[in-house]
């Protein structure tokens, strides 16, 4: 088929140039919450755990910019430190997922056979488990802490990343440049690391960002139920849970963390999606 000399690519539309306002706002928000979370100790926020019983549920004021919560603690400070917890879990858990899941997925997609069948089967079993129930059970057994939470959510994320990596590897292994590497006498390790990995990294990264969003929500749900980040360390989820009691008097106590979480999750999703759209047409169909 003599079609390779000049490719008039109709699909490389101006869509990829639409890194519009929304994308940059999302990036801006992500940078903001990360900066604030990292620098929380240095910035002049009041302590998130200092209770001021006289100022319970105080409205916005110059002393407490976003008011206080049901126990008189500064709302803004709690949001900031809550960002710390949520983002810590939200970032570290998917890292576990992408490293372990990505590696297993690539190995499964490359070597195939019984090994692949075993991995895919195990992943299916894990995916079939209601994740929150599993998290609850393990927390009840091991105890509540940020570390345990991160580990649980990380492991729960492994099957999803494994699937993404395996699918990408399966498609790529058939392409001629992989066969070319084999024909050159490259070892399996070399092919996996130098030929496949640079191509698999892209869909994994896009999925990673979506994974962060999902983990933040998952952590929020667990903390909302009181089974995630243990008090008094603030977390957006637990703040929403606490704010539930004051919904009639001071609805802001529930809504402020909810909105913050919503904006953060939305931003991660937007950036993840845009990255995926950007990188796809460049490398052709995977």
């Amino acid at each position, binding site marked *: 088929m003599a079609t390779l*000399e*000049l490719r*008039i690519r*109709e699909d490389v539309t*101006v869509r990829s*140039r639409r890194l519009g306002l929304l994308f940059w706002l999302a990036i801006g928000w992500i940078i903001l919450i990360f900066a604030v979370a990292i620098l929380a100790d240095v910035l002049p926020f009041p302590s998130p755990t200092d209770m001021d019983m006289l100022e319970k549920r105080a409205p916005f004021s110059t002393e407490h910019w976003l008011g206080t919560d049901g126990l008189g603690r500064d709302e803004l400070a709690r949001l900031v430190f809550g960002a710390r917890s949520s983002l810590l879990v939200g970032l570290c858990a998917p890292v576990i997922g992408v490293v372990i899941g990505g590696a297993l997925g690539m190995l499964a997609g490359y070597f195939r056979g019984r090994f692949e069948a075993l991995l895919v089967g195990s992943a299916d079993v894990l995916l079939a488990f209601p994740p929150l129930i599993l998290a609850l059970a393990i927390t009840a057994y091991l105890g509540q802490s940020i570390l345990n939470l991160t580990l649980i959510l990380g492991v729960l994320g492994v099957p999803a990343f494994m699937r993404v990596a395996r699918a990408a590897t399966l498609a790529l292994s058939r392409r001629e440049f992989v066969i070319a590497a084999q024909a050159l006498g490259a070892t399996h390790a070399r092919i996996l690391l130098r030929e496949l990995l640079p191509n698999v990294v892209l869909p994994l990264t896009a999925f990673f960002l979506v994974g962060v969003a999902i983990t933040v929500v998952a952590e929020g749900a667990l903390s909302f139920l009181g089974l995630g980040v243990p008090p008094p360390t603030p977390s957006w989820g637990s703040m929403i849970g606490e704010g539930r009691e004051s919904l009639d008097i001071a609805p802001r106590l529930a809504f402020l963390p909810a909105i913050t979480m919503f904006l953060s999750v939305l931003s991660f999703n937007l950036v993840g999606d845009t990255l995926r759209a950007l990188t796809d047409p460049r490398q052709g169909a995977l």
Partner: protein
Amino acid sequence: MTAPVLLSVEDVAVDLPTPRGNLRAVDHVDLEVAAGRTLGIVGESGCGKTMLSRAILQLLPKRAKLAGRVLFDGQDLLRLGSSALRKLRARSLAVVFQDPMTSLNPVLTIGTQLIETLMEHLVIDLAAARARSIALLAEVGIPAPEQRLMQYPHELSGGMRQRVAIAIALSCEPKLLIADEPTTALDVTIQAQILDLLAREQRRRHMAMILITHDLGIVAGRTDEVAVMYAGRVVERAPTQALFKSMRMPYTQALLAAIPKLDAPPHAPLPAISGRPPDPTRPLEGCSFSPRCRYAAARCQREKPVLREAEEAEHHYACFNPLKITAGLSA
């Protein structure tokens, strides 16, 4: 020309906006096809032949800008509304594409696709449509046509699928059939069969046909007239015999020479054309072929040559330094 003109392409230009600038896919093309005759359009990929066929069929991508006139049977296709256009398709204007796997719907049976087409465009009932479908499949050389009606495209071989695509295209007795690289994806023995089929059907139905290909060999024996395209323009147009016997365009000659011939001795170096076709987003000022042409002069780089008629009637070419006529084949 004694036969009436069925299709007239007048000064058609197609522009596509791309991130890298405006892409002029078709650059002021004039063509005519008479009823019952076959026109071959030859060119390599990127020369604009596919875009031209899409322009005629009004199947261009949304972003494309089309200028000029396409007169079919007296009607300007560019002015027709979409429902009038739809009626025209299948009944008068049909097309066969290169890849039968993507031009047939993979989730519908062959029978459904044939019968659907028939019932959409002709006033017949289901039983008559079914009978006609079977007859059509037999005509295009598919064995056991009744069984095939129930099969899906993926159950057939490439050659069979292409026959089905042809059957669908011919089902409503079109006046003009456009075959866009119909055999490029097929094996050479199947290719011969499909081309024979097209020629046979064309003669029987007194249908006009446009055969688009990159293979000069295909047009040699099977067309009445040939137009050679390069970089969006028609650079030479002549009755087939005249084109091969008294070629004027250096490009046509170079294209012919670059094809390995079966009667040439092995290991003879092939006369290749150096360089590559121009980038359509950056058109050249002068003749598009001049960087690769061994007869190029200064004028060729400054001015764009226009199609004009040679001494022989109906032989047009666009060149400032055409080849001299020699007796016999100038390949």
